[in-house]
C-alpha cells in the first residue's frame, strides 16, 4: 500500500519509447483538425479565414480608392453601376500548440501521468509536423513556462522528442500565470491542446479564461491515473495521512466506504464542472485514463472529439 500511486514506470529515455514506428505509421494518415480556421504564417494545407489572393471567392466589399482594379466585379458594376471588390480565401498553415503540465502531480500514478502526456504530446506533435503544421510545445509549472517554439516538418520530430525527454516534472503547477504567459506570448492562432490533470488548487478558471479569449481552438485533455479514478480498487485503505506531492499539504483521512464514495462524487463533480466551464467557452474537454492504449486514445477518442481526422 505504501506504493499506492507512486509511479513505478521508468521515465522514457529514448524517442522510440515515446512513439514507436507502428504508431507512427498509423499517425501518418491522421491530421489535426480544427473546428475553426486560423491564419497561419505560412501557406499550409489549411483553409484560412484570412481573405487573400486565391481562387476561392469568399466575399464582396465596396471599392475604395487605391484598391486593385483587377478584383472589381464588373458584372455587379454593370448591373448596379457600383464598384465592388471580390474577396478570396487565402490558404494558410495550422499552428498546433501543445501545453504540457510539468508539475509534480503529473509524476504520479501507474501508468504515470507525465509519461502518458509525453507520449501523447509526442504523437500529436508528430501528426502536426507530418502535416506541415507549425508545432509549438510548452511545458509549465510554477517555475515558469518552457517553450519549444515553431517546429515544422517531419525532420523536426527528433528535436521535439528530445525536448520532451528532457522534461522533468516538479514543483507546483502555476497554471494561471503559465496560461497568461502563453496567451500573451502567443502570436497568431491555432489549436491548443492542454495536457494536464487540471487538479489545480488555485483553480483552472483563470488560466483557461486567458486562453479562451485568445481565440484558440482549445482542447483540454484531462489526464488522470487509475489510482485517482478509483482509489479503492487499487488498494487505498486504512488510516492515512495523504500528502500532496506538490505542496506537501496533508489530509488525514480514515478510508471508509463513505469517504470513497464522497471522493468519487467530488471527482465526477470536479470533472463535470471543468467540462461545463470548457463547453461554455468553446473549449473541448476530454478525460483520459492513463491506462488507456495510446492508439485508442488518438485514433478513437480524439478522432471522435474532433481533434484529429
Amino acid at each position, binding site marked *: 500500500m505504501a506504493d499506492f500511486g507512486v509511479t513505478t514506470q521508468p521515465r522514457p529515455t529514448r524517442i522510440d519509447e515515446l512513439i514507436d514506428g507502428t504508431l507512427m505509421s498509423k499517425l501518418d494518415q491522421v491530421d489535426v483538425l480544427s473546428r475553426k480556421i486560423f491564419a497561419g504564417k505560412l501557406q499550409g494545407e489549411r483553409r484560412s479565414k484570412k481573405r487573400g489572393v486565391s481562387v476561392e471567392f469568399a466575399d464582396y466589399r465596396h471599392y475604395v480608392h487605391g484598391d486593385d482594379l483587377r478584383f472589381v466585379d464588373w458584372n455587379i458594376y454593370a448591373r448596379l453601376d457600383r464598384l465592388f471588390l471580390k474577396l478570396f480565401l487565402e490558404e494558410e498553415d495550422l499552428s498546433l500548440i501543445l501545453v504540457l503540465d510539468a508539475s509534480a502531480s503529473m509524476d504520479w500514478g501507474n501508468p504515470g501521468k507525465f509519461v502518458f502526456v509525453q507520449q501523447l504530446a509526442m504523437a500529436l506533435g508528430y501528426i502536426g509536423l507530418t502535416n506541415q503544421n507549425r508545432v509549438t510545445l510548452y511545458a509549465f509549472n510554477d517555475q515558469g513556462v518552457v517553450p519549444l517554439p515553431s517546429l515544422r516538418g517531419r525532420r523536426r520530430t527528433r528535436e521535439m522528442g528530445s525536448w520532451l525527454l528532457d522534461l522533468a516534472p516538479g514543483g507546483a503547477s502555476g497554471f494561471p500565470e503559465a496560461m497568461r504567459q502563453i496567451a500573451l506570448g502567443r502570436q497568431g492562432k491555432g489549436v491548443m491542446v492542454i495536457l494536464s490533470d487540471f487538479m489545480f488548487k488555485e483553480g483552472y478558471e483563470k488560466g483557461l479564461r486567458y486562453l479562451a479569449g485568445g481565440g484558440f481552438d482549445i482542447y483540454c485533455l484531462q489526464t488522470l491515473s487509475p489510482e*485517482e479514478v478509483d482509489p479503492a480498487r487499487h488498494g*487505498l*485503505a486504512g488510516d492515512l495521512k495523504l500528502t*500532496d506531492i506538490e505542496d506537501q*499539504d496533508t*489530509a488525514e483521512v480514515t478510508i471508509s466506504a463513505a469517504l470513497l464514495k464522497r471522493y468519487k462524487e467530488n471527482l465526477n463533480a470536479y470533472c463535470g464542472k471543468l467540462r461545463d466551464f470548457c463547453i461554455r467557452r468553446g473549449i473541448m474537454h476530454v478525460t483520459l485514463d492513463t491506462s488507456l492504449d495510446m492508439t485508442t486514445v488518438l485514433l478513437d477518442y480524439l478522432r471522435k472529439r474532433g481533434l484529429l481526422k
Partner: protein
Amino acid sequence: MNWISIPAGLIVAAAVIPPLVLLYFLKLRRRTQPIACTLLWQRSVEDLRANAPFQRLRRSLLLLLQLLVLALLALAIMQPQIQAGRRAGGKTVILIDNSASMTAIDGMDQQSRLDEAKRRAANRIEELYGRGLFTQEAGETMVVAFSDRAEVYTPFTDSKPQLLAAIERIRPTHGRSRIADALALARAFTTNVDPDSDRPLGEPATLELFSDGRIDDLADQVLRGETLLYYPIGSPTADNVAFTAISMERPYDRPTSVEVFAALANFNTEPVIAAVQLSVNGVANAIEEVVIEGAEIDPATGVLIPARRNVIFTPFEQPLGAVIEVANLRADDLAADNAVRLVVPPPRRLAVALVGSDSFLIRTVLEGMGSIERIVKMTGTQFDELAQTGGVDQYDVVVLDNYAPSAEFMVPGRYLIFGATPPLEGLNEFGRGKGQLILDHKDEHPLFRFVNLDQLFISRYNLLQPADDVQVLAEGSDGPVIVALVRGPMHVVYVTFDPLDSNWPFQRGFVTFIVNAVEYLGHAGEAISESSFVPGEALSARLPAAAEKVELLLPGRESPVSVPVTDPTQFSWGPIKLSGVYGVSWEMPGEDDRSARPLAVNAISESEGDIRPAQEIFAREDNVHVAAGGGNQYMPLWPWAVGLCLAVMMLEWWVYHRKSYI
C-alpha cells in the same frame, strides 16, 4: 437478579473503559501516503464532516462495540444471578400435608389450606417444568400426600401433566400430621443403595413441603442429607375452638339414661363464647353456652397452651341406641373438630353362664347386676356339653369359677376365670404360691375403674408364666395376678386366685371388678362409652358370625360400598380418612331386612386443633433449621455474558475487517 461481586466488576470497568475511550479518541497513527493532489480528498473529508451527527455515530460504532465488550466482561465479573425456575435438576419430592388442620378455611377466596397447598405445588411444578430460557433440566418429581399415613400419588416422573393430575387428586383427611412415613417413602424412592447402579450412592432428593407446619413428629426426624424446603400455608390469625374429648355413660342405676361429657380447647388468645349443642340422632336435645378463656403462650418456650373447658350435659333418657353428636355452633376456621359423635348402643342386657362350684360369692354379685338379663348356672360337665354343641356363643360372658375345662372344650368366647388356670397356650402355670400383695395394676384399664387393689392380700394363688401376648393387668409380688388374653374371638380375663383365698370379697372393689369385667367382656368389640375411632385408624366391629354382604356407608355418601369380609366377627376397614358417622350393614340368613350399626369417627387431636401455621419448622439433629419458603435457586448469568462478549468481539472483528471503520 442479584450480584455476587459488584465491586470487582466496577473496578474492572473503571480500570479499562476510560483508557479505551481515551485511546480511541487520541490521534491515530496514520501512515503517510503521497498523493497527486489532496484537493478532492480534503473536500471529501469536509463533506463527511458536514454531516456531523451521523458521521460521528458511524465512526464510533467500533468504539461502542468495544465498550459493549468491556461492559459484558465487567458484567460477567459481577457474577449476576437470576432467579430462574428456582431449583432445577435431580429428584424432587413434593410433600403435601392433607391432615385435618389443612382443611381450615383461612385462605383467599374461602379456599382451604389444602387447596392453597395444591395450588402452590402446581405452580412449583410449572416452575420446574416451565421450559424457560433460563430453566435447567427439572429432573424427576414425585408427589406424596401425608396425614397419619403417607400415600404416593405419583412416583418419580418428569411428566408435567401427570404431576399436575396427581396433585389435583389429593383429597383432604381429618387425620393428624405425621411425616415419618412420608420421609421413609421419599428415601425409599430416592436413596440409591445399589453400588452397581450408575447413580451416586445415597443420592438425596430435595423435599419440598407444603404444610401449615403442625406436624407431630417432625422434631423427631433426622434429615439424612436431604434438603427440606418448607412452604408455610395458612393465615397466622387462624381461629379455632376444638373438641378434645367426648364420652358418655349409662349410670348403673339408670341404664336407660345417658350422660354425655365433652371437652373443648380454645386455641385463640382471646376468650370466646361457644354454644355447644347436643343432638341425638340429629335432633337437638340440649344446648349449653360456655365461655372459654383465651389461650396463653408460654414465655419460655413460645408454645401455645390452649384454654380448656369441660361441658357436662344433663343426663337424658335414651333407652334405645342412638348417635349422639356434640357440636360447637361457633363458626371458626377449622370445621373438622367442631363436632364429635358417639354411637350409643342400646342398653343390651347380658346373658351370663356361671360354671363351676356353686360359689355364692360370684353368683350374688352377678345377680345384683342390673345389666345382666339372665344367669345360667351350670356344672363343668354341662359346660363341656354346651361347648361341644356350640352353645357357648349364646352367652355373652362365661364365668368359670374354679373350673378349667379341657382344651377341646375351651371354645372361643368371652371368659371371666377365677382360680383354675384355663388350658390356653401362653398361660403357663408352674405351681402355687402363698401370700402376696398387689404391687402394680393398670388402673386405667376398664376392669379397674373404681377398683383399688392396694389392700388386696392373696393367701393362695397360681404361679403363672404368661406369654408375650398375654396382658398382665395386675402384678403381685410373686408374679402376675390378673391377666387378659385376646386371641381373635377368644377374650379371657383370668384371675389367678380364688377370691375366697383372699380378702378381696371384703372390699368394695371386688364387686366393682366383677361388674367391670362382665361389662367389659360382654360388650367387647362395641363402642360403649367413648368413640374409639380416629382418622388414620381402621374401623373395626364384631358382627354376627353369620353376617354376609357387608357394606359400609361413608359419611356424606349416598351409596354404601361393599366390603369383602372373611370373618364377620372381625370386621375391619380403613384407613379412616374423614370423621363422621359410618354405617356398617349386613344381611343375616333368613332375614329380609339388613341389619346396621353406626360407627363414629372423631377428629380429636390437640396438635391439629392448633392451626396457627408455623413460619419455621425444625427437624432434629442439632436443631437444623429448615428454611421457610424459598428454595430459590439462582441461575448464574456470567456464562451468558461471556458468550455475548465473544459474539460482540466477532462482530467487531467483522466490522473492522470489512475495510470499514464506521
